[in-house]
């Protein structure tokens, strides 16, 4: 035994170290993905017998108005959430100075990211309140009528996205601040000698060097947009009339809430969301694979 270990230590050791982590990860993450795929072919209330229904959950999805609303909202989230990236860059450029106390400013600007989305949601729900919310006080002061942002189908999704952009912008800002720190000063000096300034400098000299930061910012923003659940649950509970649902929220609603426990149907929605996410995951892994190879 001892001799065997001595001889094969290098081969066995990595698996020994990996074992607990892999087991946990398989049990709670990898296997459940396949279980969900499987459940999506059944009708199941979570307690009784599962009944195999083939593709009918997916067929039903095709005709489900609420599904399309959620899908559309997911797209709006994806597109508008991207604003966090230029916004974060803008704030980072604004704060990338060395005046006194700037470090405290930087951390205070980062603040929204540290607090829970539940708190962010409550804060913004209140900000939008039609009676005494700050937004409507401002709107009234400008002479317009109040808007009940979160009770209006036209505005509700945008209102929630704005709330989400607040912490997300802070996140992108910190990524860019770190990136700006690593920008090569010699290149900037050289570009200055060539009379590059302002926008041209930013576009041709700075942004190319910020590529790694931009890449991470895109990854976390896409994931954040597709994971949007907390804010919707807190601010509107999917309403009014389901108009602010996204796939993540609709799935939860179908699978367990007062509307019934339709696990199979919920799983089918989750599979669609997973398929969308898989596009990004594959892209990310591909880039990582290329980088690893290049090393």
């Amino acid at each position: 035994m001892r001799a065997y270990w001595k001889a094969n230590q290098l081969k066995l050791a990595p698996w020994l170290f990996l074992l607990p982590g892999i087991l946990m990860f398989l049990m709670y993450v990898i296997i459940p993905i396949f279980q969900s795929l499987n459940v999506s072919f059944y009708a199941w209330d979570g307690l009784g017998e599962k009944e195999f229904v083939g593709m009918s959950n997916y067929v039903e999805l095709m005709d489900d108005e609420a599904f399309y609303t959620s899908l559309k909202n997911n797209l709006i989230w994806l597109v508008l959430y991207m604003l966090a990236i230029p916004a974060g860059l803008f704030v980072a450029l604004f704060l990338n100075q060395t005046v006194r106390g700037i470090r405290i400013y930087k951390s205070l600007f980062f603040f929204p990211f540290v607090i829970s989305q539940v708190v962010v949601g409550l804060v913004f729900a209140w900000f939008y309140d039609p009676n005494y919310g700050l937004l409507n006080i401002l709107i009234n002061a400008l002479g317009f009528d109040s808007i009940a942002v979160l009770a209006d189908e036209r505005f509700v999704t945008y209102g929630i996205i704005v709330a989400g952009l607040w912490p997300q912008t802070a996140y992108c800002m910190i990524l860019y601040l770190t990136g700006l720190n690593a920008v090569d000063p010699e290149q900037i000096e050289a570009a200055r000698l060539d009379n590059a300034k302002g926008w041209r400098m930013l576009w041709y000299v700075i942004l190319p060097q910020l590529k790694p930061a931009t890449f991470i910012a895109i990854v976390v923003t896409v994931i954040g947009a597709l994971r949007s659940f907390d804010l919707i649950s807190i601010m509107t509970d999917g309403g009014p009339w389901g108009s602010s649902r996204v796939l993540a929220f609709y799935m939860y609603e179908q699978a367990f809430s007062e509307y019934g426990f339709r696990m199979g149907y919920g799983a089918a929605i989750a599979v669609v969301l997973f398929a969308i996410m898989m596009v990004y995951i594959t892209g990310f892994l591909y880039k990582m694979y290329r980088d690893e190879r290049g090393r």
Partner: protein
Amino acid sequence: MFPTPIEKASPSARRLYKIALPIALVLWLLPLIAVALTSIRSAGDITAGNYWGWPTSFNLLENYTAVFTNSPIGQYILNSFKVTIPTVIGAVALSCMTGFALGVYRFKANMLVFFMFVAGNFVPFQILMVPVRDLTLSMGIYNTTMGLALFHIAFQTGFCTLFMRNFIRALPHELIEAARVEGVSEIQIFWHVVMPLMKPAIAALSVLIFTFIWNDYFWATVLTQGADTQPVTAGLYSLNGQWVASWHLVSAGSIVAALPPVLMFFAMQKHFIAGLTLGAVK
């Protein structure tokens, strides 16, 4: 440095910048400032609609005491700690080992295992929700802080492995080679050679995971219910339902709930940012 350092700008531009800075900050944090102010208002102010004017009285102590005595928020916070601390310890411990295995050894399945962790870490929560709830139920730990913590440990291992593995890759490999030549066993290399060098990574990861898990809301609603087990994020949501229009209490509760990660962030700022921006500069 870009943009051009403000010291090189004209005096008026410099003055403008110094004025713009605090104004921008106040605007940026306006929602939070409003909450902080509301949390010290009296109930009278709230019913009178005095949200933005000067408070008629400062009820800091009254409101915060009321939050703790009229609601189970103390229990919620305790639950949050009972979920968060085991998760931090568990996920960091597991990923020290997985990160070491994937960072140090060359073997065929290395990349495959690594990609499994990375891909799993990006998966939408909803695809895990039904089976994880079932699993937790069948293990008899549904609606316990341990059931919630176990899931978090497993899921966070994905991100933590990515982090640790990249950190260990960047360590000088010669150290490990030298130890091997000396006949030091692999387990001893892990414990005595690599672990001491991993301290900054462990610190960064711990703060990060603490914040992530403290702020988790989705899994709290899926795997726990009721004030005995729910963490403060889910608790705040139900308190919000009970305290309709008692905005001074909701605000005070929000601040209490947000405080631990905020304190953590300020205490360990450098580690936090180092963790968050890993990979953003290369």
